[in-house]
């Protein structure tokens, strides 16, 4: 008889084991579903979801007529994934050749960054090169989109605009001063990626990128160009060390042009000396010399120390003040204030200056903004130096009267001349285009300002500034020739700064320009010879560009009348020739 074996016990045991096992699994699944969902989903998403940064455009910098001066455009950078690249060493020579680097360089670069997930190998490459690299189709080589800043006007606006570093952060000039304004806020979005890191689908936008705001400068690119061209030519002609020129709009105080030599190309900044980056018109100070004399006269007129007709004896051309001797080029004899300005007599101005209360001249100069920031907000702008009169000796009153013992920037000097151009009112200067005109501040009376402007006109018509004359316009201005400080103290005999500060048209000035040429080395060094011609050449073009009508048309008319008579006598139809 076959013993009937009963496996009931065993069966029950196995079944219950399965049931318990299944129950455990279900319970675990429910537990995970209920309590750990977020964590686990997150882990899952990590395998395929990526957050990608969306770069934001930096704002464009333009001139006052919206001509671009700094523009950001996207460029490609070549990056590598070291872990992948090490598996295809056979392709390295091809990659190195395409990028123009040696095999060792590439090898060293990758070997030292093995633990990194992704590194940029060559940044901001030209589009053709990027295409060539991608055609090689090497595993582990990728392109990354970045933005590069271009400066279409190049060296002409280099100092004002400044530049950014490779990561688009402002480094110099306006790019630095208005970095916050120009900078965009980068956004991000979530995407689904496959195993090789290619984007399969855009899921959602996390944060939209906010592009930076644009900025319009007060610069007029056309005038800037003319000023740059003429300054460069003058600095070369006179073999000068450096030079600056500032052009101001008298009605708004806006800077229409600010140029310097030496300059640099902001698009290619390799092999550059730091000195080339300085916006000398705003950051470098010099003693203003004779260009201060008009303010001394204005101060004397205001206080009643002299009148327009007061005659001053400047003979014999020298004057002792304390232990110092003040000299003129010639003995000019008896001069009135107009004569002192147009001949630029040091003796005459010294006599006037020491007759003034110390506080008077100081108050005038401080009110004009010397020794204080102009408020342009430019990084590294110099404030210059104007010592308080409490610390003065007699000689200081005299030296200050002809522009020594204080230091100014070209921009400060130009902004001080606003007082003569605007009938005694000065305006804050601005490097950005102003939405509306600022209200001015009175620093001298209308009549003094107009009187001195007449003297400045005489200085150009028949005095030291003759080379600043422009046919068709009345020009007012003052030359300056300043001895530079010697290294061992005192003044150097053979090193000068040549200056000219002027305005046009003198009947109702629209433009002010200050030209500064540092150490002309070709023999000529007087402001009237070196700096004044630059003023004339720039203003001739600027008046044409801005359509400023001539205020002295007499010299222009005779030809006109002759021409018209010619037409009549020839009995031609009244057609103007082309």
């Amino acid at each position: 008889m076959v013993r009937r074996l009963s496996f009931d016990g065993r069966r029950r045991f196995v079944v219950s084991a399965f049931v318990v096992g299944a129950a455990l699994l279900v319970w675990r699944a429910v537990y995970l579903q209920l309590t750990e969902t977020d964590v686990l989903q997150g882990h899952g998403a990590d395998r395929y979801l990526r957050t990608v940064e969306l770069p934001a455009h930096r704002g464009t910098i333009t001139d006052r007529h919206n001509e671009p001066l700094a523009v950001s455009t996207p460029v490609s950078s070549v990056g590598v994934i070291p872990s992948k690249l090490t598996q295809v060493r056979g392709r390295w020579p091809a990659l190195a050749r395409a990028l123009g680097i040696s095999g060792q360089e590439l090898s060293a670069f990758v070997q030292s960054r093995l633990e990194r997930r992704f590194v940029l190998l060559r940044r901001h490459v030209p589009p053709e090169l990027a295409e060539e690299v991608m055609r090689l189709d090497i595993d582990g080589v990728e392109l990354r989109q970045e933005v590069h800043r271009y400066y279409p006007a190049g060296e002409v606006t280099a100092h004002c605009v400044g530049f950014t570093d490779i990561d688009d952060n402002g480094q110099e000039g306006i790019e630095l001063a208005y970095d916050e304004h120009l900078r965009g806020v980068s956004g991000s979005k979530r995407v689904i990626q496959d195993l090789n890191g290619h984007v399969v689908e855009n899921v959602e936008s996390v944060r939209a990128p906010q592009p930076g705001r644009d900025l319009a400068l007060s610069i007029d690119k056309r005038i800037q160009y003319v000023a740059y061209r003429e300054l460069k030519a003058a600095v070369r002609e006179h073999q000068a060390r450096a030079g600056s020129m500032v052009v101001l709009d008298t009605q708004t105080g806006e800077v229409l042009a600010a140029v310097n030599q030496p300059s640099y190309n902001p698009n290619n900044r390799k092999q550059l000396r730091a000195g080339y980056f300085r916006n000398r018109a705003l950051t470098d100070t010099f003693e203003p010399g004779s260009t201060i004399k008009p303010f001394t006269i204005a101060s004397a007129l205001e206080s009643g120390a002299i009148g327009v007709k007061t005659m001053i004896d400047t003979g014999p051309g020298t004057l002792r003040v304390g232990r110092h001797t003040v000299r003129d080029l010639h003995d000019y004899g008896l001069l009135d204030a107009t004569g002192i300005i147009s001949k630029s007599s040091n003796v005459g101005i010294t006599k006037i200056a020491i007759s003034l209360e110390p506080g008077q001249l100081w108050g005038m100069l401080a009110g004009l903004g010397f020794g204080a920031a102009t408020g342009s907000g430019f990084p590294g702008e110099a404030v210059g130096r104007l010592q308080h009169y409490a610390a003065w000796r007699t000689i200081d009153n005299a030296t200050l009267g002809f522009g020594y013992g204080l230091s100014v920037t070209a921009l400060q000097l130009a902004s001080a001349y606003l007082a003569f151009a605007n009938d005694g009112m000065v305006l804050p200067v601005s490097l950005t285009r102003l939405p509306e005109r600022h209200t001015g501040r009175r620093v001298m009376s209308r009549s003094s300002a107009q009187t001195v402007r007449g003297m400045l006109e005489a200085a150009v018509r028949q005095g030291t500034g003759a080379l600043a004359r422009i046919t068709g316009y009345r020009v007012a201005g003052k030359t300056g020739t300043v001895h530079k400080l010697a290294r061992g103290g005192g003044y150097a005999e053979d090193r000068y700064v040549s200056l000219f500060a002027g305005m046009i048209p003198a009947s109702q000035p629209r433009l002010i320009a200050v030209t500064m040429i540092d150490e002309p080395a070709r023999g000529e060094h007087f402001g009237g010879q070196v700096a004044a011609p630059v003023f004339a050449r720039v203003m001739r073009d600027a008046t044409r560009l801005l359509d400023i009508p001539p205020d002295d048309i007499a010299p222009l008319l005779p030809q006109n009348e002759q021409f018209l008579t010619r037409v009549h006598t020839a009995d031609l139809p009244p057609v103007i020739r082309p």
Partner: protein
Amino acid sequence: MTRILCPLLVGLVVITSLAITLTRHQSRKLFVELQALEQRHDAMNDEWGRLQLEQATLGTHGRIEERARSALNMTMPSVTDVIIVTD
């Protein structure tokens, strides 16, 4: 009461679930479309920037002046060439 309410609710659930799927799908589609448009916008923006740059580079005053003087033989009119009209 429940005999009417139950199927009604079930029906509503079915309808809303279908509607959810539909809107989900539509929102996906629209997002993709938005992305495509944004990409086009960006591409056009880039293109515009490049064109602006190109224009500015070609229109550099130095270049224009040089071309006008050498290639086109132009000169600045002198004072005697200007006729002033007065009234």
